[in-house]
């Protein structure tokens, strides 16, 4: 598969999934980590996938890239890249794609980089393998790549080991590795979670700039809504292995529909809050992936849940605009929602969830 498959001007999605299911066989039973996810990402577009741990967001990105092991995993549904079905491709076939077409940036650069290999070599390795460069050509390209991602003294850094670099620089190296062969699709799995707050913004800016320059698509996985706010075109919120709301970024923040998303928004600490005010949290724990509750998976923790919610699982339906979908029986703004809010405001607890 080569890059010319996906035409720059195409409006067809670069990558899409239809009803993707990834189930793990565990001693306790089958864990439905990703349970029917349908998303599309067009060229040059970036999608943020947000959720708590256990929501399935990391499994989603790894499934889409085809990185999961063969044994103990049940795959269903379709994954199409450039119009071609890749769900059931063997690792051998996917290896030609990993690097030149798709790449992933991981969360912790200290453990994701080989500790005993010089960082320059970790970049030139891909260049030599996929683009057939000689080692001197590759080194020159790697040096330029380091400069592009903002690593100072690039030439010297090429010969250093990961432990000699700071956290932010290591993450830049990882980005350089990912972008080395010019992929069209980048999966970023919590790329800033392990970094200092000050560095986080720099890295996100870097990613954003690279994406624009290269007209790349990105899937950005994070548990932090604040991260996706400025850096993605669309956001998909995941809960219990399913997408529960999807909208263009602005619309999600201004016209939130699903109570879980609302709760996530409200749990972001803001400077405007009075100091020492309690952090709003969502009480309870993520659902059991092996034995999920009947009905809506968020119902046990939802402040607005009613009997219907516990009986019937809501389908994804459209909101006011066609690119905004959500799954909720009694979304934000509905009469039942307001009714419940009334009741809650009369109770002493400042938290939104059930006390």
């Amino acid at each position: 598969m080569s890059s010319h498959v996906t035409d720059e001007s195409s409006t067809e999605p670069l990558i899409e999934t239809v009803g993707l299911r990834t189930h793990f066989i565990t001693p306790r039973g089958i864990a439905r980590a990703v349970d029917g996810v349908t998303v599309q990402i067009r060229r040059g577009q970036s999608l943020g996938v947000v959720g708590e741990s256990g929501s399935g967001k990391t499994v989603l990105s790894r499934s889409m890239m085809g990185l999961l092991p063969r044994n103990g995993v049940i795959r269903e549904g379709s994954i199409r890249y450039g119009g071609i079905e890749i769900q059931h491709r063997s690792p051998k076939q996917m290896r030609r794609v990993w690097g030149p077409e798709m790449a992933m940036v991981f969360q912790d650069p200290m453990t994701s980089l080989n500790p005993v290999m010089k960082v320059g070599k970790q970049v030139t390795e891909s260049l030599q393998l996929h683009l057939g460069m000689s080692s001197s050509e590759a080194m020159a390209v790697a040096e330029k790549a380091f400069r592009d991602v903002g690593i100072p003294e690039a030439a010297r850094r090429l010969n250093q080991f990961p432990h000699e670099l700071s956290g932010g620089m290591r993450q830049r190296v990882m980005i350089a590795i990912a972008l080395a062969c010019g992929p069209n699709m980048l999966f970023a799995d919590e790329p800033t979670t392990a970094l200092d707050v000050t560095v986080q913004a720099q890295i996100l800016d870097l990613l954003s700039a690279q994406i624009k320059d290269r007209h790349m698509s990105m899937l950005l996985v994070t548990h932090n809504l604040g991260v996706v706010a400025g850096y993605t075109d669309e956001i998909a919120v995941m809960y219990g292995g399913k997408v529960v709301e999807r909208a263009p970024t602005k619309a999600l923040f201004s016209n939130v529909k699903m109570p879980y998303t609302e709760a996530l928004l409200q749990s972001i600490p803001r400077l405007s809050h009075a100091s020492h005010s309690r952090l709003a949290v969502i009480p309870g724990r993520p659902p059991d992936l092996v034995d999920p509750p009947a009905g809506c998976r968020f119902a046990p923790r939802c402040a607005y849940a009613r009997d219907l919610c516990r009986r019937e699982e809501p389908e994804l339906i459209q909101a006011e605009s066609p690119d905004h979908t959500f799954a909720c029986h009694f979304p934000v703004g509905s009469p039942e929602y307001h009714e419940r809010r009334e009741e809650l405001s009369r109770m002493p607890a400042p938290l939104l969830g059930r006390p």
Partner: protein
Amino acid sequence: MTAEKITSGSDDHGAKKKLGIGFWLCVIWLTIMACVALFIPFLPLKSPTSNFVDATQGRPPYAPSWTHWFGTDKDARDVFSRTLHGARISLTVGFTAITAGFVVGGTIGVISGYFRGWLDRISSFVFVVLLSFPSLVLAILLTSLIERSLLTVSLVLGLLSIAPVGRLARAATIQYADREFVLAARQIGSKDHQIILKEILPNVAIPMSSLALLGMAVAVVAEGGLAFLGLSVEKGITWGGLIQLGSDSSRTLEDAPWISFFPILMLFLTVLSLNFAGDRLRAFFDVKEAAL
């Protein structure tokens, strides 16, 4: 991230939960060998030193047959009987050696590990010195200087096992001496020796038990090596000695391989059983440890 850690076909997933049938097979074999070693005078065996020359078969050595299950050697001595007698010395030396090593090495290790300080430094240095010799070389050196009886050979091998046993006991003790239940015991006024006996020893005994089996295997092999070189119990029938007699000349080995091979087989099965059982035991306790 829990989903990611589910690996396929993981290593001995089921085997760790119980000791397994292999373990019990080894135990059975070892019990048989132990019984042989203990009850040899009462077993209906041919004499190991008599010559059973049979004119009708020509010159010895005779191949295995119904009268001589393992055949005979050049002097027409019954290999089966000699092999079983060999078990006696080899196993006794192995057992005594590791027991002595455990008692002395274990004590030194636990005490050093518990009290630390200059005692620990001295004993650690002694251990390192002992471990600076390849053990066979040291064994050869020591056994050549003494009168080689069952007891002395056992003690020499025991001496050699003091260092490895001591080191493990010390490491295990250090690990436990810092734990909370020891601190708690001290708070309620337990004396040191009480703490050692009641808190530390039972826990240290667990990793040591598998070392006991593995250590005995090493001792049996070491005795075999010494016997092969002529440095084990004098005038005793040992597996190593039998193997050496059967392979001393290429002629003998070529014409009558059974003289060496049956003792080799017995030695191999015994060492294999000790190793396997010791390993199973270690795997069994390892998992329990991790689950605590």
